[in-house]
């Protein structure tokens, strides 16, 4: 028998995110998907799901859900506390929720996003090859609000899985992201390039799935615009005025601002936890070293989640 999860309170922003809608950037569709895919994979691992099965991405504030059937669930990510009908439960492990119970995920003090995985997943149709929500276009769904509900696919049996300590994601207020220079990096002066990779930035107040502005070292020589060209999540743009802007998972596919750096694939999952006020260092690397970094990171993660890809 399958039941439903009802949204009691979606908080700041809650959406279904799973496999991205890959392969459509030539028609300007960003693939969407979890902003922090590693943490969704961990939540899925706790309940025995495939690593990229769609779960709920919960942003910053508290959110609550009602289950009209029993289910096995796990919460991983920024939230460090939750309760089931008022009884505190740990994050980072599986829980059995009785039929009719309410699950409340508390607000995050560090980091931004938490993921709720339900054993067996949700009964949802694929959109353009993915199971994710592109919020700006309402493609694959929309932000979930009080009164919305999702059909559960129907549950696997109870599990008791706890994320091993070595794999627990510790959220901090300071982070380093490896970057390669962007295509227009050469337009920066030596001084500005040194500042870019040498001095810390602070995540400004504007931060969401589209991206975040970086306050910090003033880049003095500002190159002009370029003819609209490809950008990707992790591309750092330098607009003619104002702070550099780091593109997120839902950013548009092309842009006209100089692309001065690119966060490498191995580190992009961490961008999903960038929170206003956090300190960010851009760590310069090159494509060959970035590939090695990815290889090492995946080796570690696959010891727990064998199919994980980044």
């Amino acid at each position, binding site marked *: 028998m399958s039941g439903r999860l009802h949204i009691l309170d979606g908080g700041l922003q809650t959406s279904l995110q799973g496999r991205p809608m*890959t*392969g*459509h*950037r*030539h*028609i*300007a*569709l960003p693939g969407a998907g979890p902003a922090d895919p590693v943490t969704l994979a961990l939540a899925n691992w706790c309940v025995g799901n495939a690593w990229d099965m769609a779960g709920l991405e919960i942003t910053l504030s508290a959110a609550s859900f009602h289950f009209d059937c029993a289910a096995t669930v796990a919460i991983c990510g920024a939230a460090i506390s939750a309760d089931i009908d008022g009884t505190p439960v740990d994050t980072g492990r599986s829980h059995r929720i009785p039929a009719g119970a309410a699950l409340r995920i508390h607000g995050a003090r560090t980091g931004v996003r938490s993921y709720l995985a339900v054993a067996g997943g949700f009964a949802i149709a694929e*959109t*353009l090859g993915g199971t994710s929500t*592109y919020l*700006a*276009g*309402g*493609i*694959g769904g929309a932000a979930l609000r009080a009164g919305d509900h999702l059909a559960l696919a129907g549950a696997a049996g109870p599990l008791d899985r706890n994320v091993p300590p070595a794999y627990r994601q510790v959220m901090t207020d300071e982070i380093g992201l490896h970057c*390669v220079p*962007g*295509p227009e990096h050469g337009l920066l002066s030596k001084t500005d390039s040194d500042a870019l990779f040498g001095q810390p930035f602070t995540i400004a107040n504007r931060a969401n799935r589209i991206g975040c502005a970086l306050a910090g070292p003033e880049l003095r020589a500002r190159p002009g615009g370029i*003819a*609209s*060209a*490809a950008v*990707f999540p992790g591309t750092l743009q330098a607009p003619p005025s104002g702070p550099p802007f780091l593109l997120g998972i839902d950013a*548009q*596919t*092309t842009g006209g601002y100089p692309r001065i750096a*690119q966060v*490498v*694939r*191995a580190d992009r999952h961490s961008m999903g936890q960038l929170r206003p006020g956090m300190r960010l260092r851009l760590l310069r690397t090159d*494509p*060959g070293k*970035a*590939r090695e970094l*990815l*290889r090492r990171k*995946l080796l570690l993660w696959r010891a727990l989640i064998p199919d994980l*890809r980044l």
Partner: protein
Amino acid sequence: MSADGPFLNADELAIYVADDWLSAPMPDRPRRLAATQALLGRADWEEVVPGLDSLAVRFDPERTGPDTARLLFARTLASVAVEEDSAVETFDIPVCYAAAFAPDAADVARHLGLAAANLPSWHAAQKWTVDMIGFQPGFAYCRAAADVMPIPRLDQPRQSVPEGSIGLLGGLCGLYPFAGPGGWPLIGRTPAALFDVARNPPSLLRAGVRVRFTAIDRAQFDRLRRR
């Protein structure tokens, strides 16, 4: 240096390579479009992204290293045959130029040196070709065969541009498939479904196709919109 060979030709040298994407300058539109089609047909690339004067691909660095990606890309480019322009499909896009849909028509007409009343016939008479899709899913950047006087961006972008809006910016014409913020001066609105996930392909337009705008009145717009 790659194991595949130590020599890079001039094209390859101009390629920018990150750890999982690369981009090459490609100002020639027929070549860019032919290369886009060729690259979309190959399993080497996760994404293919044509820009206004460049072409980028994203690859999986677990499978493909940066040097190999550069060589695979350059080899595909070298084998691309550029199509005759005459083979290109033409799409008729109905546009209602009613004042309610064209808040910036007077300013745009002034920039173009036209009487406001002549803007719709001027717009419909141009031969437009889609240069690229960007900004929003299915948003077409169209370029006219004749040079168009560049139109400046709105000083204050609108918080919400209605779906189907048609704007002019620089020398280009753009079509908004989705409501959202936008800075293009607006001259009309189309009832056509520019992006529909239930359709294959979901985007009505793609880079390289021709666009012919035809004027419709408000009653026709409302009728087509309801469909």
